[in-house]
């Protein structure tokens, strides 16, 4: 039996040139939000690290996270699935089923205690003693506790695992619970979104692989690299908002010109995600670019913060934006007030971000 191959050795075997490999490292460095001076560390790490054992659980979910992950655009990312990680348990892709699948899981847990990475897709139902989700006759609740005990760290994929997502929406009929409310003694990285962007998922995993550390997280546990900016602040349609140019009705003349979707209910102003920067499916588009407002799918409780087509100013808790709604009115004074109010909101939101950045917490690469 040979030695486990390093990531670079795998890349070479797959016919990737050294140049391709270095380009990948550069992409990764940028995607992970790491200073480019650290790229040498990335290259070194990928050249020398063997494959990391990974177990991927599916509880109350729709598999959109797995689907998003296999859409990650970089050519080497798909190889991660087969080669860079040792994906020892995943109900979506693994060849074995039933007892043989469960054996693969338990073999990994026994062979790599404290070493394996645990990925969780889906929420865990706690109602009725957990009978709303069972695998091999055991409840998700029991499984998640058992597997977490030996995990080095946990990644909560998507909104289901991060905040409960749709099944936790009112009235949460099954007691759907995110993983961090059940497991409290392990590092948990939340990667919310319904689903999260594939590149964000890959970026998170590759950060773990390359640096051997958890990426820098915000105070809710999300990687800062991808979740520190509002969609509204990074949206290419933002100048339309600032100029008071809004879509007023679906497919109207303003929609055909790509004006701001704020009045159609866009949640960009209250959503922290990388959609407007990274975009989706190799940068092809993102919801706003394709004419529909953001529904805020990476934010906790977004299903209950609707209806989706009601503009934010009309929703409870968003009064500060109410005067911004008058931006579309031609009167100059109204516009000025609106912009002022929006600026205040933006400042309030940004203050959190700035504070988080300026906090004396240790940085991952230190």
């Amino acid at each position, binding site marked *: 039996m040979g030695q486990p191959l390093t990531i670079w050795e795998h890349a070479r075997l*797959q016919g990737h040139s050294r140049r391709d490999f270095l380009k990948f490292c550069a992409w990764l460095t940028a995607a992970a939000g790491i200073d480019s001076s650290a790229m040498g560390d990335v290259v070194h790490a990928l050249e020398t690290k063997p*494959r990391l054992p990974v177990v991927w659980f599916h509880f109350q979910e729709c598999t959109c996270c797995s689907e998003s992950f*296999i859409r990650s655009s970089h050519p080497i990312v798909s190889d991660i699935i*087969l080669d860079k990680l040792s994906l020892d348990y995943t109900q979506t892709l*693994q060849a074995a089923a039933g007892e043989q699948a469960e054996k693969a899981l338990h073999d990994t847990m026994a062979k790599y205690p404290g070493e394996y990475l645990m990925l969780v897709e889906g929420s865990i139902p706690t109602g009725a003693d957990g009978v709303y*989700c069972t695998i091999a006759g055991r409840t998700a609740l029991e499984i998640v506790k058992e597997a977490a005990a030996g995990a080095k760290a946990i990644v909560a994929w998507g909104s289901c695992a991060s905040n409960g997502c749709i099944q936790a929406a009112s009235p949460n009929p099954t007691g759907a619970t995110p993983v*961090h409310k059940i497991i409290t003694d392990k590092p948990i990285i939340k990667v919310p979104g319904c689903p999260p962007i594939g590149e964000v998922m890959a970026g998170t995993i590759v950060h773990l692989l390359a640096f051997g550390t958890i990426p820098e997280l915000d105070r809710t546990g999300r990687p800062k690299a991808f979740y520190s900016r509002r969609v509204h602040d990074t949206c290419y*349609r933002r100048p339309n908002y600032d100029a008071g140019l809004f879509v007023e009705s679906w497919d109207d003349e303003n929609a055909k010109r790509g004006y701001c979707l704020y009045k159609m209910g866009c949640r960009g102003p209250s959503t922290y995600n990388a959609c407007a920067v990274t975009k989706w499916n190799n940068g092809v588009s993102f919801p706003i670019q*394709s*004419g529909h407002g953001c529904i805020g799918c990476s934010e906790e409780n977004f299903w209950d913060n609707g209806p989706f087509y009601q503009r934010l100013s009309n929703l409870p808790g968003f009064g500060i934006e109410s005067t911004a709604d008058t931006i579309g009115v031609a009167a100059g004074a109204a516009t000025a007030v609106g912009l002022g109010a929006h600026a205040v909101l933006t400042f309030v939101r940004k203050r959190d971000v700035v504070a988080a950045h300026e906090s004396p917490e240790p940085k991952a690469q230190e």
Partner: protein
Amino acid sequence: MANRIVVDPVTRIEGHLRIEVEVKDGKVVDAYSSGTMVRGFELILKGRDPRDAWAFVERACGVCTTVHALASVRSVEDALGITVPPNAELIRNLMFCAQYLQDHAVHFYHLHALDWVDVVSALKADPKKTSELAQSLSNWPKSSPGYFSDLQKRLTSFVESGQLGIFANGYWGHSAYKLPAEVNLIGVAHYLEALEWQKEIVKVHTIFGGKNPHPNYLVGGVPCSINVNEVNAINAERLAMVGKLFDDAQTFIEQVYIPDLLAIAGFYKDWGAIGGGLENYMCYGDLPTKGYNDPTSFKFQRGIILKRNLNEVLPVNPKDPQEVQEFIPHSWYEYSGGDGEGRHPWDGETKFNYTGPKPPYTQLEVEQKYSWLKTPRWKGNAMEVGPLARLLVAYASGNAEVKDAIGGVLKQLDVPVAALFSTLGRTAARGIETMLVARWAKEFYGQLLDNIKRGETRTAETAMWEPSSWPADAKGVGMSEAPRGALAHWIVIKDQKIDNYQLVVPSTWNASPRDAQGQLSAYESSLVGTPVANTEQPLEILRTIHSFDPCIACAVHIHDPHGRHVHHLDTF
């Protein structure tokens, strides 16, 4: 004495499925299919804005993403009497086609292929012979001896590393694997190629719906606007990209998927007589060419076939309270009128009532309730839905294009029509319709361009957008053909809010438990008679179950605490 085999989790599917079978003398004599996860969508939807419903129900499934959104907007449009503009219909059709192309190819390679392809055997293949074989099957350019030998080296070092990942504990070397090593190597090569390709075709969703999985839909049309003079709308650049994506998809389907399907099927013709199961097939039809309200214009015809009688296609009307009904004699629910009731979805109820064994358990109480799936019936009949049902209904309806495509495949495999009613038939039907959909997508694309050339750019009908314009009470049904089969959503709207919402999805039809009369549903029925060579390795059971492409999350839909920073590890 029969031997009980339990397969849980059934892997390479979407969702949580448990299969228990009784095996006697090397064959399955009875089977039980159980969905083991529930979320309660219907309960969550009550009281919400009907225009939001598509986003909720789209999350029923991320594998067959978009299909529930489509059924949902159609149900609301049906309730409110909205007709969407022709361009919206075409864009919805294009998104539908993109979903089929991606979903079916991923099913074939990533969810089903390992039931037929022995990955370890591929290590013994001769790359030169593999190349010759590949070139005899197809014009696909990646077929040189070097290509296959590089892949084989990669595979060898993977296996030698001792970390087998997703291939660990597979059924390699099982006597039911019949492919020569060279065909296995081609299968593994295209497993990886398909993984790359599937990222491309979904970009059609990203262009029109902003993202994939879970692109955006809109009641009344589609959210994207068309303006060829604007960078911020669907313009020439976006349309050209859509055209290219469908061209490339057709190449992949015709040069990789179909040749592989035929090559592999040729070694498993015995599976043309295994796994037939039910004799009734249902298809709601889809891909309108003259609007959703004219089902006669659909590319996939609507109808019912009973007793495999291809000379008669019966009509189906999901609004008739006597036709589609859901039963719960073996499902963990309760009805206000008791377990004997069948309820039409407009009057559907969702109330959990778990009475199964206390976990951890080793066997379900199959005489009692044993699944989170309800049991739907059409006029009391158990129905199979999915690619095979679609093709049979189209065939029996006289659809010449479908007849030709089926005839061509049967001829190439040299098997009779009866071979369609089987595990192999289901898998072949999925490939055949993928080929057809790849063609149809180009027709729809051409029609969209023609409309735009004529100056027709409308994509949304907004006259009924404001809830104040709605009647106090309205009911609708939205039908579609999801990749896995007949899908419908029933909505009841009262005072501008959802009063009741029920989904009866393909995998509920196929994977549900038996009914009070003891009639098995499609999975259970098709497993009866399936050979099992080794009770420790349920490979044959997986073949038949995977031929349906299970999608169980849909089917059971139906259902830092201190504010301080974050975890930090010095080493990972």
